[in-house]
């Protein structure tokens, strides 16, 4: 108790590493945007594939999705960073290998979000479009997707928020994001409490507005 009372918080020292903080923030944002966009592309492609009727198309996609949904992200990141280059016998750039696990993880969830959005559209919409003489591409583009994307956006934003936090796991492969930057500053200042509190505040400041935005989107879709 005595020790706790005696602790003197010193944020000034920790925050004086401005240059490092800014760089760390930049890395976190870059990986967030990059892996979310990569995941989105994977999600659209794989989500479309899941709509196919042929088992040999859908089965591998399901397999991919379940592998990434049912294993820890930390393991995925480590595995793609260290094991994949060995398995494939190729040299991958560090920044790429580090982001691969995160991207595929996001892609797995985006696939489910995309598929869920499409199949949530009433069967009557499909039959009415077909009855008018629309081809599969026409009815997808003009009838199904305009309705489905509206429903996909809120879960996708939610998953992106989770993804931004998940980039903190990159610190295990020494990518200098916010989290890793924090650990460097800790080793320099021996001020872990101030450092990790600052890290937490930084994530909160970025994410809180996003969650409010997501809630608004959801309300709009519900109308």
């Amino acid at each position, binding site marked *: 108790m005595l020790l706790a009372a005696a602790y003197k918080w010193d944020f000034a020292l920790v925050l004086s590493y401005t240059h490092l903080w800014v760089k760390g923030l930049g890395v976190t944002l870059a990986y967030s945007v990059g892996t979310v966009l990569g995941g989105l592309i994977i999600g659209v492609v794989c989500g479309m594939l899941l709509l196919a009727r042929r088992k040999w198309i859908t089965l591998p996609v399901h397999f991919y999705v379940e592998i990434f949904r049912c294993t820890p992200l930390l393991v995925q990141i480590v595995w793609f960073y260290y094991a994949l280059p060995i398995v494939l016998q190729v040299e991958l750039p560090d920044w790429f290998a580090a982001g691969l696990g995160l991207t595929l993880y996001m892609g797995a969830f985006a696939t489910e979000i995309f598929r869920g959005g499409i199949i949530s559209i*009433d069967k*009557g919409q499909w*039959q009415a479009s077909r009855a*008018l*003489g*629309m081809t599969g591409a026409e009815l997808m583009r003009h009838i199904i997707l305009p309705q489905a994307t509206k429903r996909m956006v809120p879960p996708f934003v939610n998953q992106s928020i989770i993804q931004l936090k998940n980039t903190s796991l990159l610190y295990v492969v020494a990518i200098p994001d916010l989290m890793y930057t924090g650990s460097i500053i800790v080793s320099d200042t021996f001020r872990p409490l101030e450092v990790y509190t600052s890290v937490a505040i930084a994530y909160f400041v970025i994410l809180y507005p996003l969650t409010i935005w997501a809630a608004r989107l959801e309300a709009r879709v519900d109308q």
Partner: protein
Amino acid sequence: MINSGVMVKVEGLRKSYGTVEAVRGVSLEVRRGEVVVMIGPSGCGKSTFLRCINLLEEPSAGTLQVGDRRIDFGVRQSMPHGRDLARFRARIGMVFQQFDLFPHMTALHNVMAGPVIVKKLDKPEAEKIARSLLAKVGMAELADRFPRNLSGGQQQRVAIARAMAMAPEIMLFDEVTSALDPELVGEVLDVMKQLAADGTTMIVVTHEIAFARDVADQVVVLDAGQVVEQGPAEEVLLRPRNQRTVSFLSRFHSTIGERRA
């Protein structure tokens, strides 16, 4: 060469789902401008039969001819695909029990959807067609409303206009008044009567026996996937010969008598 007066010719059409056969060899000929009403107990296969005509369902056997396009089903699969199938369906209008309007489009844009998306018509041209059809079904005033702001009867009238916008050679109606509140049934039936009077070729699946009596040129009674009776409306409805027709109609006879009086 097909008789020029015949729009639709179906021969020995069958449709099975696994071991269940929903349509068991139905034949039907519909001439230009003719109104055919199909009645029968629930689950008798009349909706399935209708959905086979525009290939929303793939028939298991039989032949189907719409206009000059003839398709044989059965031994060798000949179900059209892709653009070919879409083009086949574009010539046939269909209206559904649940309306199935596109909720992200106004009534006007629902009606324009076929001409614009399928026929690639200019928007102004499509709008002209759409507005005149909406006027015809009494929906001109509400053209800019979204489906969620329309009553069931209004939605169904828009759905009829949407199908008519493709200038189909034949219109299919699949229990289009079954999901409506009783007081809204009349406005939809009136639109259909008008279409019939204009010479539209129609196949109507319905439980509205009075409509069949007033509008149908030909009534077909289906039971357990087979035609049990077929002929002019007066004959089939008022002097049915088949026992199953008699028992099916007995539930409606009070209605027929009532409206006749």
